[in-house]
């Protein structure tokens, strides 16, 4: 029984140490954030509120220090956060007012042409190839515009409409693009119709109608990530010219082969869902995938970075059973040897 007592002491001390350096330390280093939210209207407003309360706290601590320059900066930051909250509220309220049930795919096709979408984007499924090859598109826009064939599959109605209406807000890139340095894709102010909301609903209906019903994980990854990111362990490389891309993003976006291991699935879901929540100020746009597409991207990353997971876990069971039997034989042998030692 003494041995059991000792074992318990050893195990408890090891577990306390483990708890301190793993879950506890990591919870301090990576403060908790709200879970993934596919309702972007709700998620964005919530996140903007989080930022406002953070800025308020910053202002409080600046006031405590009493340095006027710092207080001024904190006040300015707080005002910006408040403006941003208002902007998100208004923007998503506008999107919320769109009745997607009334969307007409046929009319959407016309709006799509009239609005000039095909000037930059390909729509392969409808027989419209991209107007420029990747090299020229990289030169022209700094990043290759996506082919929209799968857009109706990758995004839900609200996000599609939001990105058409005002990509800079929908992609959460306001800190990067403004009036002097506009986002390459202009906001949509209507294509001549009377009701802009109707036009948005029509275009969404059109993209939904042409999109394939099933898309492979690899294709989802290509359409959502590969314009900027490599996945070299799967032999997938960026579409955009790297020099233009580095200029556009500020640095070359990382290869995603090992991302599943360095960040973990949970972080990746949250990051794809809202980049600014996880890494404020990052140049990467919010991806905005719907739940299914996002799960496919993460599954693809899992495949690239942790291919042997299934093999590892099934073999693991056998190895453990082997050592259990080994241990039992060891115990029997020990009993035999020690029977004459006592």
């Amino acid at each position, binding site marked *: 029984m003494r041995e059991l007592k000792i074992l318990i002491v050893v195990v408890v001390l090891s577990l306390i140490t483990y708890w301190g350096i793993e879950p*506890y330390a990591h919870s301090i280093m990576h403060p908790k954030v709200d879970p993934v939210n596919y309702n972007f209207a709700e998620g964005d407003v919530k996140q903007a509120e989080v930022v406002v309360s953070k800025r308020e706290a910053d202002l409080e601590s600046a006031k405590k220090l009493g340095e006027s320059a710092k207080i001024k900066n904190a006040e300015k930051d707080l005002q910006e956060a408040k403006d941003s909250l208002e902007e998100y509220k208004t923007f998503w309220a506008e999107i919320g007012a769109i009745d997607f049930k009334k969307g007409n795919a046929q009319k959407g096709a016309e709006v799509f042409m009239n609005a000039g979408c095909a000037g930059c984007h390909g729509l392969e499924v409808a027989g419209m190839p991209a107007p420029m090859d990747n090299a020229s598109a990289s030169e022209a826009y700094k990043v290759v515009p996506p082919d929209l064939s799968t857009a109706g599959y990758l995004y839900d109605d609200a996000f599609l409409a939001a990105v058409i209406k005002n990509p800079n807000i929908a992609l959460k890139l306001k800190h990067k693009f403004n009036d002097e340095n506009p986002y390459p894709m202009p906001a949509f102010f209507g294509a001549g119709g009377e009701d802009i909301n109707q036009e948005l609903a029509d275009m969404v209906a059109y993209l939904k109608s042409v999109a394939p019903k099933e898309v492979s994980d690899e294709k989802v990854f290509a359409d959502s990530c590969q314009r900027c990111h490599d996945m070299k362990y799967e032999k997938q490389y960026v579409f955009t010219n790297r020099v233009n891309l580095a200029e556009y993003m500020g640095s070359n976006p990382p290869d995603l082969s*090992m991302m599943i291991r360095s960040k973990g699935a949970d972080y990746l879901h949250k990051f794809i869902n809202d980049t600014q929540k996880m890494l404020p100020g990052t140049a990467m746009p919010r991806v905005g995938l719907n739940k299914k597409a996002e799960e496919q991207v993460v599954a693809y990353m899992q495949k690239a970075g942790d291919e042997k997971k299934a093999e590892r876990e099934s073999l693991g069971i056998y190895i453990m059973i082997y050592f259990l039997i080994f241990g039992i034989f060891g115990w029997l042998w020990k009993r035999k040897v020690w029977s004459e030692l006592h």
Partner: protein
Amino acid sequence: MAQIRKSTGIIDWLDQRMAVNKMMKVLVSEYWIPKNINFLWAMGVILTTLFVLLLITGFLLMMYYKPDINLAFDSVNYTIMKEVEYGWLWRHIHAVAASVIFLIIYIHTFTAIYYGSYKKGRELIWVSGMLLFILFSAEAFSGYMLPWGQMSYWAAMVITNLFGGIPVIGDAVVEWIRGDYAVSDSTLTRFFMLHVCLLPLVLIAVIALHFYTLRIPHVNNETGEEIDFDIEAEKYLKGDKANAKVIPFWPGFLAKDFMYIGFFMIFFFYLVCFHFNFAMDPINFEPGNPLKTPPHIYPEWYFLWQYEILRGFFFDIFGFSAYNIGLIAFAFAGIALFFMPIYDRSDVVAPAHERKGFFVWFWLLVIDMIILTIFGKLPADGVTMGISNSWIGFYSTITFFILLLVVLPIITTLEKKRGGK
């Protein structure tokens, strides 16, 4: 030359040439171990097992690993993990064993402290063991750098930088160690050589020395009883096995250890196959990037207590800069436990629970080291339960030194005056 006659079999043939029977008696069947020991005495054999695992998997990994900053990361994460059959298994066994071996080393070390196995005739066992600890630290550090992950790179940067604190020649030493102005390809290749060649050779030699130092004083036992091994061995050999206080290394001791190894390996392979990342910093799955500093730089868990001592002194004292004090404290922490036989002034060899003052001291040391370990990982600018982490680090660092350098000599001197216990 000895008279060689026609042998009766292979053993006899060998015996005539190498005295294998005699050797087996000395090393195994008549190498006596006290009977009253518990599973903590199995840690040595578990460490040996882990070391052998590290050696074998290390050789397998070396077949595919490329010591070149442009190839290293992918040779580990792509070639070994994806292309080589069971490469993931060797890699995870190697990585997990590297971490778990330190857990067992610490248990092994604290067992020795608890039962007073470092003194009265056993000093060399202790000193060679501490030497092994230092060598394993160097081995672990040089190996940690090889996959060229982001944390490997920055840990190497920070640790090699520490040598810059040496007076006068510091900067030159740093450059000499790195082979360059910054951590670079030349650093990687020399660390590769150290990790796979020089250090393992020295390690094996010191492990042999460690075993040899055990042969004459013999291992300690659960009650610290002084056993006359010759008399007890004679009892055993005469057939009075039940009353002899000793058992032979084989089969008596190893029979038990095989069982412990079996059960330990279940836990070990659970980690390897289901929880390998308990020991791997996720940041290390990003390739080393000299242009991007990780938000927090910290070493692997087993160095955290020393790391916390390094940064425990965060303010200047009497004109000595915090940096230099921290560096001296860190250097000393690395070798502090070497001198246990000197700090402990008492001759009593007994388990801590039979030495009142020492018992309290022992658990204070354990708690202090756990606190150092945990706060070594936390960001220094944080606050825990209303106290700033820097101050917690400072106080637990001071506590570590006071416990070793002041408290232990005092309580053991008092113990000696009382005549033991």
